[in-house]
C-alpha cells in the first residue's frame, strides 16, 4: 500500500464500513456530492448510492435522527462539519444518545465524527477540542486517534460498537500525517507506548502526541529518555498503562490541546495521584492551551496551544525537580 494520510484513513474506514454492513449510512452537511468540507467522504456518495446523505444545518436533529435510526438497528456515522458545531447538538448527544442504553436497554450504535482541534487561522469557532466536554457525561465512548493507523481502525471499531462514540479526528493531522499502511489493530480502551523511555512520562493524545514526540526527541539531545504514552481514547482511559509507565519513570507530564480547566489532563493527573501516588518522584504536571478562546491569528494561536517548545520547557522543569 502506498502512502496514505490520516484523512484518507478516515475515508477508507467509512468506505469499508459502508461496504461491509448495509446498516451503515453517512449523514452530514455537504458530505454527498461534495464529499464533505474536508473531503472525508469523497466519492462515497457515488460509490454507495442512497447511503450518504446531505443533512440540513440542523445539528440537533442530525443527532436525534441518528439515535432514532440506531434504535431501529442502523449504524449511522454522523459528520459534524466542525467539532465546534456539535455545541448545538450537545443536548441530543449527552442526554438522548448517551442515556438511551442505560434508560431503556436499547443499544445506540451511533458514531459522531468531530473534526477537532486547531489549525492556523481557524479562530475560536473552528478549532475546538471537545473531548473533555463529552467525556464528562456518562454513556459515551470518546476516541482521540493520533495516528493514521488509529484513525482507520478506531473508526471501523466505532461503527461496530453498540454504544455512541464521539470520534475526535484532528484536522491538523488530516493532510500532513502519513503512513505506509494501517498496521495492526489495537483494541479500543488500550493506550500505547508511542516512545519508550525511563526518565519521565508524557501522557497525551491526538495532535499533541506529535508535538510531544518531538519534545521527547529534543530532550534526548540532553540525554533524557522520555516515554510518551498515547491515550488513544480519553474515555475509557487506560489507567493501567499510564500507571505502568509512571512506575518506570517516576515523573509525569500530561499534555492536551483543550482548555485548561478540568478535562482530560486533570483526569489523568487525578488518577495517577490517587492510585499511584508513591510512584511519583516529582509533582505531576500538565500543559494545556490557554484559558481564552482560540485565537485566529497564527501568532497568537501558536502561543495559545502547547507546542514542541513549550512541552520541552515543561519537561525540563519536570526533570529538574
Amino acid at each position, binding site marked *: 500500500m502506498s502512502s496514505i494520510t490520516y484523512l484518507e484513513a478516515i475515508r477508507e474506514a467509512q468506505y469499508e464500513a459502508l461496504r461491509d454492513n448495509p446498516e451503515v449510512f453517512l449523514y452530514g452537511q455537504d458530505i454527498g456530492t461534495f464529499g464533505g468540507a474536508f473531503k472525508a467522504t469523497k466519492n462515497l456518495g457515488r460509490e454507495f448510492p442512497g*447511503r450518504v446523505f446531505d443533512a440540513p444545518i*440542523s445539528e440537533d436533529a442530525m443527532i436525534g435522527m441518528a439515535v432514532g*435510526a440506531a434504535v*431501529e438497528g442502523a449504524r449511522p456515522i454522523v459528520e459534524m462539519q466542525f467539532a465546534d458545531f456539535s455545541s448545538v447538538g450537545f443536548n441530543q448527544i449527552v442526554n438522548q444518545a448517551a442515556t438511551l442504553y*442505560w434508560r431503556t436497554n436499547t443499544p445506540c450504535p451511533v458514531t459522531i465524527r468531530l473534526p477537532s482541534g486547531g489549525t492556523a487561522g481557524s479562530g475560536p469557532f473552528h478549532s475546538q477540542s471537545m473531548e473533555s466536554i463529552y467525556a464528562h457525561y456518562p454513556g459515551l465512548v470518546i476516541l482521540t486517534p493520533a495516528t493514521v493507523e488509529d484513525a482507520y481502525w478506531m473508526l471501523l471499531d466505532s461503527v461496530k460498537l453498540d454504544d455512541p462514540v464521539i470520534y475526535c479526528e484532528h484536522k491538523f493531522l488530516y493532510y500532513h500525517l502519513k503512513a505506509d499502511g494501517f498496521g495492526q489493530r489495537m483494541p479500543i480502551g488500550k493506550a500505547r507506548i508511542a516512545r519508550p523511555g525511563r526518565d519521565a512520562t508524557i501522557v497525551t493524545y491526538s495532535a499533541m502526541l506529535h508535538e510531544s514526540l518531538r519534545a521527547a526527541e529534543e530532550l534526548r539531545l540532553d540525554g533524557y529518555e522520555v516515554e510518551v504514552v498515547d491515550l488513544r481514547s480519553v474515555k475509557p482511559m487506560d489507567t493501567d498503562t499510564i500507571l505502568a509507565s509512571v512506575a518506570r519513570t517516576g515523573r509525569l507530564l500530561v499534555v492536551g490541546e483543550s482548555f485548561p480547566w478540568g478535562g482530560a489532563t486533570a483526569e489523568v493527573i487525578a488518577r495517577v495521584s490517587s492510585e499511584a501516588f508513591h510512584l511519583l518522584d516529582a509533582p505531576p504536571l500538565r500543559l494545556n492551551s490557554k484559558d481564552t478562546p482560540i485565537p485566529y491569528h497564527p501568532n497568537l494561536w501558536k502561543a495559545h496551544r502547547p507546542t514542541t517548545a513549550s512541552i520541552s520547557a515543561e519537561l525540563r522543569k519536570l526533570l529538574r525537580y
Partner: protein
Amino acid sequence: MTLSDKIVTSMPSQGFEDLRHDFLKALRCMILSRTLEDKLGSLYRAGGRIVGGVYLGRGQEAFSAAAGIHLRWGRDIYGPLIRDQAGRIAFGEPVLDAMRTYLGVSTGPMRGRDGNIHRGRPQVGYMAMISHLGSLLAVVGGALFARRLRGTLGDSVGATSIGDGGTSTGAFHEGLNFAAVEKLPLVVSVANNQFAYSTPTHRQYACEDLVDRARGYGVGGHQVDGTDLLACVQVFRTAFQRARAGEGPQMVVGRLLRLGGHGEHDDASYVPDLQKHSHEGRDCLVVAQGQAVDLGWATPQELRQWEKEARKEVDQALAQVSKEPVPDPYRESWQALSTTALMEGQER
C-alpha cells in the same frame, strides 16, 4: 358520581357510521386513561407510593387517543409526550407499564432508572422521551428513515406529540424540518392546550394559529377541536392516511385546555375562570360519552360497564405492582455502556 352521569349530548346522530369502530376504540382508551390517571393523581396526593412527579393528560384524552388508535404496536413508531396516556393505551401499552414506572419498581420498562412519562420500549418502536421538549421528533424521524433505507418501512408510520410550548424549541423546528425534507410518514400532534406550564400562548408564539406553521415546513396541516372526539377521530384518520400514502409529515393542531395543573403539584390558579368555562375547557371525555349515546353507539349502561372494567384493570395493576420489588442499588449494574469491556471502575 361516575363519569357517565355527566354526559352531555350535542351531536347529530347520523353520517358518521364509518367512524364508529375507531370512535369506540378511542373512547374506551380514554376511559381507561382517565381512570388510571385519576388513580395516579390520588396516589400522588396521598403520598408515599408514587416516585417523582405526576403529569396528567386530563382533558387531552380525545386528541391523544384519536392519534393512538391509528398506531399498531410493534409495527408503527410512537413517540408520545407528557399528556399522552390515552394515546399510549391506544397504541397498546399495558397499564402495568405505566403503574410500574410511576411506582418505580424494577420490573417496569425503566427499572426505576427513569420515571413516569419518560417510559417507553424503543426496541418495539415505542420511544422513551427525554425531558428536553422537542428532541423526540428527530428520533422518531430517524427511526422511519432507517426503515425506509433498509426497505422495511412498508406501510408503517410514525407519530409524536408536542405542546404549544414545545413548538418554541429549536429541536422541534429542526426535527420537523428534517422530516419534511425527507418526506417521512410522520404525524405530529400539536396539543395546543393554551398553556405551557403557566405561560399563556401569547408569550409563546405570535401567529394566529399554530397550524399556520405547516405551510412553512411544507407539511400537511390539520386543525381540530381537541375536545371533540368524533372530530379528532376524523381528522387523524385523514392525517394518518396521507402520511401512509407518502404525502410526507402531517401536522395536526388540536385546540383544547389542560384540565388540571401542569403536574399534580400545581393548582393551575393562573388559568382564568373564563377560560375554564370556554368551549375548549369542556371535558372531552364527557363530550365523547354524550356523542356515543347520541349516535346510538353505546348505551349509558355500556359506558358504566367500561368504566367498571377500567377501574378493575387499574386496581389489579396497582395490587400487582405493589408487591413487586423496588430497585436495589447493590444489584444494580451501574453501567452506562452496553459494551461491558469498555466500562471503567466507578469509583476512581
